[in-house]
């Protein structure tokens, strides 16, 4: 009864996880890969290269299928979404394209905006319809292996905007999502630029809280060995940083008076040095929590290692992100139910005629015929439950949970203290009902739960 693909929650193992699994659908087959990076780092090129690689791999696996029905194999291997409204030509054919929905040049004209404003507004407009996109993606999410999303050229239009956040969160709550942060390797060979880029990556990781992959792109032009060395050997990085003009690698005649000078004349104690060293220490911790690969989207090299990083990221999502999501959903659902309960009670009270003040209104599971005034919101009045039962029509917001006497107070009064001391309080008079469930299915569920408990216990 527990979610079929959930291979990860045995550790949780309690009835709670089984219950929560009902709240979320089973984990889909697809991985969503959000390709993020600075303008010019090669996001779109990478998306295209990845998709071609995946198709080639799929064709190798089913050569017959490929020859007979090429469109089927290609669409199963990868699914491409373009979120950049201002890109002119793409080297891949996107399945979903923001440019089909929004014309950013028209947006600029219509709202009298400049290019930045136009892109941001175009993305905002698209985001208002993103639920439809999510519907499409979820529909394909058990057929397709990888869904690749190409983000706008300028990174902060996505990372520091409300739309970007909405898109990221919507994706992450439905599919195993990971962030592929593309680095323009040839342009980050200066230590300070490298650090700046890594700090920015760290900032994105904190903002999205999703599994993170650093992709050193353009390895055909600049080998990423230096990056690996700096990431693995902290001392080497520090040495490179403190050596002279760390912020600029090739510019002649820069003459920055604030350069640290040859061999760190200022000494290790200068403010800048000390700040930079602390930042470098921070980065060391950062590297421990992410994974990095090196690819070339031009030649297509490095794709297998990227894909295995994606698999690792998926596992991380399933192990860490998903349980948090489930807990969040459970608590939110609980709050929602409590609120509904209160509202229905309030409504019942308003509808009811005031009785003659009789004591002992707390006979929820016991004397159903009794009843007096309900004093406060948490008390159960059997008349409320009867009314609720009668009112439970399809589409009605209320649920069958009103039957629950959750407080032990109620039970104490009806069953006496002795039983509670023995620890035998039957917490639920009948069964705990899910939303809109009827008694028959509740009974079945309880049996299943007991079975599950027996299996795990």
């Amino acid at each position, binding site marked *: 009864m527990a979610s079929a693909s959930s291979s990860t929650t045995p550790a949780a193992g309690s009835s709670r996880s089984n219950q929560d699994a009902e709240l979320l659908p089973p984990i889909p087959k697809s991985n969503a890969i959000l390709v993020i990076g*600075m*303008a*010019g780092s090669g996001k779109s090129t990478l998306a295209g290269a990845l998709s071609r690689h995946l198709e080639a791999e799929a064709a190798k696996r089913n050569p017959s299928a490929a020859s007979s029905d090429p469109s089927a194999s290609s669409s199963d291997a990868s699914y491409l979404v373009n979120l950049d409204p*201002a*890109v*002119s030509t793409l080297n891949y054919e996107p399945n979903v394209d923001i440019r089909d929905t929004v014309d950013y040049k028209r947006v600029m004209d219509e709202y009298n*905006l*400049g*290019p*930045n*404003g136009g*892109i*941001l507004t175009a993305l905002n407009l698209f985001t208002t319809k993103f639920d439809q996109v999510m519907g499409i993606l979820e529909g394909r999410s058990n057929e397709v292996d990888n869904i690749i999303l190409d983000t706008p*050229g*300028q*990174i*902060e*239009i996505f990372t*520091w*905007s409300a739309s970007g956040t909405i898109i990221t969160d919507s994706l992450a709550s439905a599919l195993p999502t990971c962030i592929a942060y593309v680095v*323009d390797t040839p*342009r*980050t060979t200066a230590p300070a*630029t490298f*650090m*700046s*880029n890594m*700090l*920015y990556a*760290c*900032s*994105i990781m*904190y*903002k999205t*809280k999703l599994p993170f992959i650093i992709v050193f792109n353009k390895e055909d032009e600049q080998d990423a060995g230096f990056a690996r060395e700096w990431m693995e050997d902290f001392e080497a990085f520090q040495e490179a940083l403190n050596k002279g003009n760390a*912020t*600029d690698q090739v*510019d002649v005649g*820069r*003459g*920055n*008076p*604030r*350069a640290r000078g040859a061999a760190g004349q*200022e000494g290790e104690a*200068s*403010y*800048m040095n000390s*700040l*930079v060293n*602390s*930042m470098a*220490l*921070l980065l*060391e*911790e*950062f590297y*421990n*929590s992410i994974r990095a690969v090196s690819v070339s989207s031009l030649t297509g090299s490095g794709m297998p290692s990227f894909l295995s990083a994606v698999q690792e990221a998926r596992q991380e999502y399933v192990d*860490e992100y998903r349980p948090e999501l489930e807990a969040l959903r459970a608590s939110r659902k609980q709050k929602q139910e409590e609120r509904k309960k209160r509202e229905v009670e309030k409504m019942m009270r308003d509808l009811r005629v005031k009785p003659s003040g009789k004591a002992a209104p707390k006979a929820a599971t016991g004397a159903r015929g009794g009843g007096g005034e309900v004093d406060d919101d948490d008390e159960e009045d059997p008349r409320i439950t009867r009314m609720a039962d009668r009112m439970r029509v399809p589409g009605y917001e209320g649920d069958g949970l009103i039957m629950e006497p959750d407080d032990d107070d109620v039970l104490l009064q009806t069953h006496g203290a002795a039983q509670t001391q023995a620890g035998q309080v039957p917490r639920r008079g009948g069964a705990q009902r899910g939303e809109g469930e009827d008694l028959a299915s509740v009974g079945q569920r309880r049996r299943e739960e007991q079975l599950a408990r027996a299996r795990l216990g």
Partner: protein
Amino acid sequence: MGRYAVFISGPAGSGKSTLCSALIAHANTLGRNVHLVNLDPAAEHFTYTPTIDVRELVSLQDVMSELGLGPNGGLVYCFEYLLENLDWLEEQLGSFEDDYLIVDCPGQIELYTHTNLVQRVLSFLAVSHSFRLCQLYLLESHFVDDVTKFFAGTLSAMSAMINLEVPWINVLSKVDLLSRGTVGSTSSASGTSLAARRSLERYLDPDPLLLASSANASTNPRLHALNAAVVRLVDDFSVVHFLPSDANDEQSVGTLLSHIDHAMQYGEDEEPKEPRDMDRFEDEGDGPGDEQEEVERDFEDLLSGRSGVAGAGGIEI
């Protein structure tokens, strides 16, 4: 007095141009002569006409239409064009003895990290023209609504800071939006405003222990060491602290201006002025010594009343 320039930078839409106008308006009421410089080829319109505007040299719209470049490539092209024609900038700057410039910079972080264009403009000003510089980094305050987002904001500020070795001030803009409770709140407006402001204050003067524990509560244990490292950084270096700003509130803008002045040591070089008639002071309230007094007074207020507010981090070299 000397020549001073403060560069206003930050992600797109964070409120740079608005803040520039607010700072100029405030400075004008103080009787100070400040000029707006626009370095953003993609800027749209300004409340105050810039004294120096790079769009007179080259504009993004023109580049995009004439050369068929997209917005990103076009921006880089504009900047490279500017660097090749720095003599134009020199001509515009002239050779005044006293100058106070507020420079509106483009938002794209790529210009700072991937090209050294902005660095070169800064060094051009500092070296060839002996400007005192300061950089302001703006982030929208409503993005900082929990600890991890605060970390993200701090880290992105640091990321930008590391490339430009100038005195640095971090600012959380649009705090007035928080108090109006317009951003994603379900509770009543007044309730939200107080809560929102209080939660923001938590990040303006962060308590390291509290920060660490709330970060650890909301992140995976795997990240706890990283959280500790970030908190250590925030605690050790006040340069990563944020100042709140509300462009519509004169007091807020005034405080910000004081911080900027302090970072550049504006006013420190002032020669003692000839004492003027006390009567005139009282009548006009606009005497030459007033500026400096006001700045000093602001400082005393800051130090005594709001000692919690972090100083404008100066990277003094």
